């Protein structure tokens, strides 16, 4: 199957264009499953769509645009991990259930300390992906010995949890040894890529909303959009966003981007998202400071995206280290 970026964007905007920002979690989750977006990167042999990173990028970007709630990013990680478990008997069934919308979740923290934090929608998940360099496994919900603690974030468009399993149970092993290491790297890169896409979609949406507002809002007998100082700031935002978008699509189709490449992309995209969301609040003036307006939703999600998956400090340093090793006269 083949779908262009534009076709996917078009489908997403048709599906979510009318539900508005931060749509209802349950309804939109059902819709996502219905539209087949959870099958996106699943190989066609496993009844998926077999689309690549560009398609995934388009979807995450559209999710960011509407401040989509729910565990889509985590779910895709779980599915990706399952798809890699070639020899597992129950794999196909689990993938089918996941593609149909049964929640299988994973940590979005980007930490490598083995703790299961920043797990979206853990309260309604049936499976939990656990990733380490030595082993990737899937842990089923357990009635006993499992603790799911809600951790309310400033961003209310996501619902994150801490999860612990009391008995050091093994779960379903998806990969071990060298295969686990390779899979873990790929999953981390995908998490970073998804967060970057989410951020760029959100940034583009709030930038457009800000321009719209400036065109309408009048002060001193003219629309704010007439003030050159504001025009130039918006132009600068548009410029950094466009460059980062170009990088996003370039890395989406690059043959072998490294983890540091994806981390640097994510750092760049979240930094831009945050900067644009901050400018949006400022340019909206008083109304941007109230819960009544949607500015704060973007700002808070931008800030959370900055922290998830490892922050800019971590990834910019990694990118610098990598470049230092590579760049020789």
């Amino acid at each position, binding site marked *: 199957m083949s779908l262009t970026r534009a076709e996917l964007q078009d489908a997403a905007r048709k599906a979510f264009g009318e539900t508005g920002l931060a749509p209802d979690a349950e309804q939109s989750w059902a819709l996502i499953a219905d539209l087949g977006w959870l099958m996106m990167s699943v190989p066609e042999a496993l009844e998926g769509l077999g689309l690549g990173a560009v398609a995934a990028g388009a979807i995450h970007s559209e999710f960011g645009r509407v401040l989509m709630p729910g565990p889509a990013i985590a779910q895709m990680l779980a599915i990706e991990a399952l798809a890699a478990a070639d020899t597992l008997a129950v794999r196909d069934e689990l993938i089918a259930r996941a593609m149909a919308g049964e929640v299988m979740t994973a940590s979005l*923290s980007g930490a490598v300390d083995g703790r299961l*934090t*920043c797990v979206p929608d853990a309260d309604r998940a049936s499976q939990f992906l656990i990733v380490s360099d030595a082993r990737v496994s899937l842990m089923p919900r357990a009635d006993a010995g499992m603790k799911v603690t809600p*951790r*309310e*974030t*400033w*961003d209310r468009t996501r619902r994150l949890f801490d999860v612990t399993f009391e008995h050091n149970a093994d779960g379903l092993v998806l990969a071990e040894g060298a295969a686990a290491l390779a899979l873990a790297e790929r999953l981390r890169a995908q998490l970073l890529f998804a967060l970057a896409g989410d951020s760029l979609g959100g940034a583009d949406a709030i930038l457009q909303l800000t321009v719209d507002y400036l065109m309408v809002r*009048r*002060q*001193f*007998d*003219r629309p704010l959009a*007439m*003030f050159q*100082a*504001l025009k130039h700031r918006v132009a600068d935002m548009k410029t950094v966003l466009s460059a980062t978008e170009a990088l996003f699509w370039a890395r989406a189709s690059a043959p072998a981007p490294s983890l540091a490449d994806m981390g640097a992309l994510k750092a760049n995209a979240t930094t831009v998202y945050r900067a644009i969301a901050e400018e949006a*609040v*400022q340019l909206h*003036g*008083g109304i*941007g*400071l*109230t*819960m*009544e307006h949607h*500015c*704060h939703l973007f*700002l*808070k999600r931008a*800030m*959370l995206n900055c*922290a*998830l998956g490892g*922050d800019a*400090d971590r990834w910019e340093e990694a990118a610098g280290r990598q470049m230092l090793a590579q760049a020789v006269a």
Partner: protein
Amino acid sequence: MTEALEKLRQEVRTWLEANAPRNWRETCTSHEAFLDTQRSWFAKLVEGGYGVPHWPAEWPGGGRSLAEQKVIYEEFARADTPRLLLSFMSTYHAASTLFEWGSEAQQRKYIPRILQGEIWCQGFSEPNAGSDLAGLRTRAERRGDVYVVNGQKLWSTMGQFADKCLLLVRTSDERAKQAGLTYLLLDLKTKGVTARPIRQIHGDEEFAELFLDDVEVPVEDRLGKEGQGWAVAQSTLSSERGLTLLELSARLRGSLWRLAALIRDAGREADPGVLRDFGRLATKIDATVAIADQFLATRIAGEERVGDASLVKLTYSRTLRDFTSLGIRLGGMEAQYHAPIVFGGGMETGNWMADFMNSYAWTIAGGSDEIQRNIIAERLLGMPREPKNWTLAGDVA
């Protein structure tokens, strides 16, 4: 002079040791606790003679020079007392405007009640008149002995807790927008007034929206003449004499330990990049304290230029943003978890996301950063004002 100031400093410090409220940062997690703390602290200050040092000498607690006020506020910051948020508009904005424009009868009626804790708010901004105050639309129509007021006001600080309101209304549609404004003193218990708190993005409700529906204000509660509202409002807006930013910069300086603690907690004491950012911020804070200090000195010397206040406000607001941003960065994921805010806790409570979002109040309210930049460029640097009338360009960029 300096000796007298040093003596005052010791007096205030000793008094604060005995009287400053303790543990309020732990207890102020509800509006009720916040109001209690604010009211009892203000009452205690009035009793101690430190509640209204900026008032004229003929009123109790007044007659302090700006230099003396500076000492008092520096000691407040040092003792980390609650900032006087609830009574701020009353003792500064309302009182100063009444001193300058109020008749003797109006002063005798309203001033003593302020000392007793009557709370004033300001009804200037409107949904379509934020930075462009002269464009306000709330109408007052004179009918015999009363003005009948209809309209909506926004961003009234503590409006939901206030008793009275400094109200700026339009009484005519003259060509010069300012000329049609009139200034009224509104009792918020009057029929037709609805105050609705505005929920801010960090969860606090420091401001209210006022809906005015056929509200009657007696003509005797007008300040200045009809049509003089703009001039009266200027008194209100300039009533704060530069102490607030001095106090806030000092408090910011005193809160650097919060970032130091974060650096230690995160184990980043040996990260030169973090140390540099921290060092740069600390220096910027020192510069903010210095410019606030210098501004007050200029005011004390009577040498203030139009635009000087904008330099201080812009400096503080950017520094506060940097401060809270560094907190978020160092806090990492931990800073993203929601924590309850401390009502009236000030600008730097260590609840980084809340503090960060709250810092926007400084870059937007009270003349946004953009307005301050206009003032600096036009008034301090003599650049041309914004065009008044214009036509849009045709096909030439």
